[in-house]
Structure formats: structure tokens, C-alpha cells
């Protein structure tokens, strides 16, 4: 989701026989539902995978500020402006909580940021799509946050303590995000003018498949899932979550009077789920490897902000050190 393509060992799940006694004890703790804490023993590959996953999650929050930030200055009313700004601010907060969780694993925030900027770490593909009309603020909140919540709620039970605690806080705060987006959609699609209805449908058309891609590749192509699930840093499979998302979203679209851009979408009595078309996975792999519509812009915006801010970070620290030296000298 926010962590779509996290490489774990890449070798599938280790069997108990292959494990060292320490690793076996570690796996037993996880199987008992115990939380792993920063100073506890953990296999190096668990640590590495978690750094990637939490880092990718954090980067997604930060890059995710940009597509919605694109509309803060154009929000149509004072209230909408405040709602949107508070939401994008929350994303910065969530990025911050997650970076702090990653830092407990022995990596610094600056190192993670550098890895994002040098494209050694990824962020969710969804944020490489442009936001073109105000209805996109509705669609992003409704679909993108809706998909994110679906993944994040189970992660509150993940095995790594600091990650689980960050997710608890994030889920609590995010509960208004999806409602905020859907509220915009109601106003436009259900109660709006013809122009607004058109905008709302157009936004759904553009964001539907990218939202489905957020859950990552199909389970059969997802090589890293099994080990991550054994470690309980991934709780559900990609396809499970995608199906759950479709099942919940279709009636919401119907309520809005909008149509999902999928001719194959229909209720399946036998399975009790909706049948739907897979997204175009070649597009997904293009976007994730850097060739999406906004990859270059998003990264250059992040790099510029970071570089432009260097003098500020340096100066604040220099001042703090001077003040500290002064107070030491006075003692």
C-alpha cells in the first residue's frame, strides 16, 4: 500500500529447521503475539525489511503532501481550506511519527531522506498522479485515504512495537481524512452543478485504477509477502485488501451517482464479492520505477525543499550549540 514493493529476504519464508536458535526464539515470540522492541534481538533481515517498509511508508506521507498541497491555495471556501490544510499537515505528522519509528532501528531520518532523494528508497505510486481539479481533493480523500486506512488498521497489530504504536496514533488521526474527501464528493457529485458532477466523475475515472494499484501487485506476483506475513509486519495479502476495498467502495460510488470505470464490475452472488478488472500492471511498474506522470516533479520538489532548508537547519543547530557553550561557560 504505502509500502507496495518492500523487498524482504526475497527467498520466501525460512523454515524452522533453517533458523538459528535465536531466530527460532524470535519467531516464537512473534507467533505468541509479543511485540518486538528496539533493544530486543531481531534477525538482521527483519531489521532491514522493517527499515525499508517504515521508510517507504514515511516517504509516502511526505511526498503525499504535494498532490493535495497543490490545492490548498485554491480551496474554494475558508472552511475547505482549513480542512485540507489540517489534513495535509497530518500527513507531515504521520511521516514524522514513522521516521521516528524507523530511527529506533538504527537509521537516522537524514539517512532515510537521502535515500529517498537518491531514489534508493521508494514511495507509493499513487502520489505520482496529478491533481487537476478540486474534485481530485474529494477523490484522493475518499479513495486514496480509504485504501490507506484499510492497510493501516491491521498494521496497528504489527509485531514491531514502535511501528504499531505509530500506526495507532496515525489511525486515530486519519479517521477524518476519508470522510473529508467523501464530503467533498457528496457536495459535488450529488448536490452540485453539472460542471461539478462532471469534475467528480472525471476524478473517479482518473483515480480508480491508481487506487487499486496502491495495494501492490497481485499475490501471485508478490514475492516478498510470505516472509513479511510470517514476521507480522504485513497482516493481509494484497489481493485480500484490494477486494475489501472494492467491496466497500462500489456502494459508496453508487450513493454518489458516479460510475466506476470498469465494464467488468459486477456483484458475484457465489463469492459474495464484486468481480472487477485488474489495473494495468505495466503502468504500475512504470510508475514505481520512476516513469509516472509526476515522478520527476515530486522528487525535485522534495529535493529543492530539503536543499533550500539546509541553511535553516544548520543555523538553528549552530545557535543552540552557541547558547549551550555560553551557559556552560557561565557555570
Amino acid at each position, binding site marked *: 500500500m504505502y509500502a507496495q514493493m518492500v523487498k524482504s529476504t526475497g527467498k520466501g519464508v525460512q523454515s524452522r529447521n533453517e533458523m538459528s536458535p535465536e531466530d527460532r526464539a524470535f519467531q516464537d515470540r512473534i507467533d505468541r503475539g509479543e511485540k518486538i522492541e528496539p533493544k530486543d534481538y531481531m534477525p538482521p533481515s527483519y531489521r532491514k525489511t522493517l527499515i525499508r517498509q517504515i521508510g517507504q511508508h514515511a516517504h509516502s506521507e511526505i511526498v503525499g503532501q504535494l498532490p493535495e498541497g497543490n490545492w490548498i491555495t485554491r480551496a474554494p471556501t475558508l472552511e475547505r481550506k482549513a480542512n485540507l490544510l489540517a489534513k495535509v*499537515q497530518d500527513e507531515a*505528522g504521520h511521516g514524522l511519527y514513522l521516521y521516528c519509528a524507523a530511527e529506533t532501528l538504527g537509521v*537516522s531520518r537524514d539517512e532515510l531522506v537521502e535515500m529517498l532523494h537518491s531514489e534508493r528508497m521508494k514511495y507509493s505510486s499513487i502520489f505520482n498522479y496529478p491533481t487537476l481539479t478540486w474534485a481530485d481533493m474529494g477523490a484522493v480523500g475518499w479513495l486514496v485515504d480509504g485504501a490507506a486506512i484499510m492497510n493501516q488498521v491491521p498494521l496497528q497489530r504489527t509485531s514491531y512495537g514502535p511501528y504499531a504504536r505509530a500506526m495507532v*496514533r496515525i489511525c486515530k*488521526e486519519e479517521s477524518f481524512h476519508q470522510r473529508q474527501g467523501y464530503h467533498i464528493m457528496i457536495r459535488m457529485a450529488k448536490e452540485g452543478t453539472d460542471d461539478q458532477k462532471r469534475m467528480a466523475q472525471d476524478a473517479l475515472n482518473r483515480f480508480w485504477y491508481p487506487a487499486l494499484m496502491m495495494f501492490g501487485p497481485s499475490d501471485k506476483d508478490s514475492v516478498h509477502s510470505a516472509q513479511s506475513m510470517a514476521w507480522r509486519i504485513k497482516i493481509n495479502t494484497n489481493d485480500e485488501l484490494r477486494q475489501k476495498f472494492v467491496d466497500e467502495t462500489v456502494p459508496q460510488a453508487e450513493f454518489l451517482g458516479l460510475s466506476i470505470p470498469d465494464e467488468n464490475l459486477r456483484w458475484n452472488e457465489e463469492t459474495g464479492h464484486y468481480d472487477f478488472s485488474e489495473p494495468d500492471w505495466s503502468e504500475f511498474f512504470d510508475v514505481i520505477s520512476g516513469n509516472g506522470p509526476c515522478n520527476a516533479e515530486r522528487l525535485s520538489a522534495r529535493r529543492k525543499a530539503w536543499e533550500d532548508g539546509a541553511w535553516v537547519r*544548520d543555523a*538553528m543547530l549552530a545557535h*543552540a550549540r552557541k547558547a549551550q557553550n555560553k551557559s556552560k561557560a557561565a557555570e
Partner: protein
Amino acid sequence: MSHQNEWPLWEVFIRGQHGMSHRHVGSLHAADAEHAIRNARDVYTRRNEGVSIWVVEAEKITASSPSDKGPLFDPSRDKVYRHPTFYDIPDEVGKM
């Protein structure tokens, strides 16, 4: 790559509205303690969560070691007489 210019990490503790103890809520980066208090206000009390903030530099915290978990915490397990349910009091005495 050196990170000597990264702002130090601070742990943040907040006392909520109801007079309970300060509780650890998370961490953040700040140049010094006062800056950390202000950042904590902006980051961790956005939803009216707090009435008092403590910050402490993360590296100043001394933590117990996971390998000491047994000797530190197991011995209290069998001291059940510290809990009120250990003592049977006849029902006719009433609530105690």
C-alpha cells in the same frame, strides 16, 4: 555520510486533560530543549491533547536491558499477596 548536523532526537511526554501522569507520546527533532517543547506543542497537541509537556533528549535516557528482563521482572510474579484478590473476606463483611 555524516549526520552530525542533524537536530538531536527528543522524547516527548504529555499530561492530558484529566490529571493523569505524563505519558510518552512519541519523538521529534529539535535544536535544543526549548525548541523541542515548542515543536512538541505543534506536533503532539494538535487535537487538544495536552496541558503539560516534558521533553528529554533521547540519548540521555537510561533504559533497562532486554537480557535483564527475567531477573528484573519475573521475581514479582509470585508475590501475589500484593494484590487485593489474594485475601478472602467473607461476603457478609460487605464491600472492602
